[in-house]
């Protein structure tokens, strides 16, 4: 039973209109504003030393927090998919916890714990270690925010694919590492890639949590999103949008990669 033609057209128009308003126009705005002063100004804004140092810090942050999440994600999904043990549900809830915590609160907890007046503040000060308003705090907050990403993508795929091959490998005398590296990881490779792509996008784009712990020291503790904020607050609109366009291209690339992987997973399934 199909919807009548008039209904189909009006629902479609309404849905697409909403999407254009809330997704299409913002994306278009980013690129129009970024190039408002021409491509020379665009390139200049991107080549600015402060922007470049923000890019470097963002890459560094992602380069630490994504691998941490990857190792955790593989270990946690192996644990949850392969064994039965008590409190498994509680463990899953705890892994999901960062999803339900506001980014600002994620930043706050690290300030409370490691800031100058925090629980471990005096300890870090004695050892001349700077966590808050420094790079380690940014990495920690980003890792917290992205914590469930990889595990949550690998786990359902590992559970769906079952353990038959692993058990056969075990019977044939393979060791645990051999099973992991030669059987399990190849089986879930698209899930891993999917999780890594999403985790990376979030790590590079995180704003709220990083904003709380960074201290906004120009050229030192500014990530790309924080640099966008600074330029915007200085009324340097075209500069802000030029830097924002880097993140927008990253987001569009992430979506394209996600779609590609989804079609791969579907073909296998």
């Amino acid at each position, binding site marked *: 039973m199909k919807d009548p033609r008039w209904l189909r057209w009006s629902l479609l128009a309404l849905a697409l209109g909403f999407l254009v308003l809330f997704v299409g126009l913002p994306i278009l705005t980013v690129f129009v504003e970024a190039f408002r002063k021409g491509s020379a100004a665009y390139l200049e804004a991107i080549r600015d030393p402060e922007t470049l140092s923000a890019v470097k810090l963002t890459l560094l942050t992602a380069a630490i927090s994504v691998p941490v999440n990857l190792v955790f994600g593989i270990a946690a999904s192996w644990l949850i998919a392969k064994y039965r043990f008590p409190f498994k549900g509680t463990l899953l809830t705890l892994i999901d916890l960062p999803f339900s915590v506001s980014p600002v609160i994620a930043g706050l907890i690290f300030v*409370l714990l490691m800031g100058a007046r925090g629980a471990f503040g005096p300890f870090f000060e004695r050892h001349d270690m700077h966590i808050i308003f420094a790079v380690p705090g940014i990495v920690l907050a980003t890792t917290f925010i992205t914590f469930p990403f990889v595990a949550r993508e690998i786990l359902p795929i590992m559970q769906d694919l079952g353990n038959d091959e692993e058990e056969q490998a075990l019977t044939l005398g393979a060791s645990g590492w051999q099973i992991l590296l030669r059987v399990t990881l190849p089986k879930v490779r698209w899930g891993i890639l999917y999780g890594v792509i999403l985790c990376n996008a979030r790590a590079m784009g995180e704003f709220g949590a990083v904003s709380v712990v960074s201290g906004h020291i120009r050229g030192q503790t500014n990530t790309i999103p924080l640099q966008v904020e600074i330029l915007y607050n200085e009324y340097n609109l075209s500069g802000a949008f030029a830097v924002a366009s880097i993140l927008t291209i990253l987001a569009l690339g992430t979506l394209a990669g996600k779609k590609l992987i989804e079609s791969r997973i579907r073909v296998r399934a």
Partner: protein
Amino acid sequence: MTGLVLGGPASVPTPPRNGLRPSRSGSSDARAGRMASARGSLPGFGLSLGITLTFLSLIVLIPLSGLVWKTASLDGASLARAVLSPRALAAYRLSFGAALVAGTVNVVFGVLLAWVLTRYEFPGRALVDAAIDLPFALPTAVAGIALTTLYVEQGWLGRFLEPHGFKVAFAPAGVAVAMVFVGLPFVVRTVQPVLMDLDLHMEEVAATLGASRLYTLRKVIVPAVLPAALTGFALAFARAVGEYGSVVFISGNMPGRTEIAPLLIITKLEQFDYAGATAIALVMLLTSFVALFAINILQARIGRVGRIGRGSR
């Protein structure tokens, strides 16, 4: 040492190494039990448990305990003063109110988008489907400045809205607009699989038996879609309440009027009022846990337990 855990003897049956890997039903018939409990015979339990718990503790549990530690050091009177100050109350009202409005808009248009995507064929459908996820992928600060630029007085949309008295940027409506953006994928992605699974056949049978379209909608489609839509609403609501980056640019941040609760936390932190920041954070955390609890119940009802958070990508 880890080699002992991981590279254990590969002979079958592997002797159980600890009590945490029981055979499926604790059956005394070892041979039958071996087949059934094969799930527990792979090596690596100790190592994967160790890595999982270590990372979870270091990155999530110990930091979150900082909040508990801080709260424990507060006395009740100052806690109540911080939680119930007029400025804080105005901030909750805005954050929760705008999140409710945004969640409702998300339900209406989310169900509509899911319906269009699952039922209609049209050119560019794959592109539209991909565009739904953009709010997950686009950094919130970028969304924030883009939406603000659209809705300011001279903006593409603001120039049509403001002359008619609809002030969006730097007003509570702007907060809701930003929250609609961040919440957009949640309802679509929870409702879409339900609509896909919903047997078209059932609708046809209903029609054959003489049911009107509206009757079928009310008796067949709405009951199936409602739990998923409510889950999506709760997810979008929880996300919107905690949202900072996309809201902070468009809201205008006037204390008592357009200041959201997360921003108030940051303001208090900048004034070194750690106790006040913690108190407001607790109110927000409790709310999102209530939302999470509601989601869990709803998820159990639609039989996708343990997949919360999948929508939060």
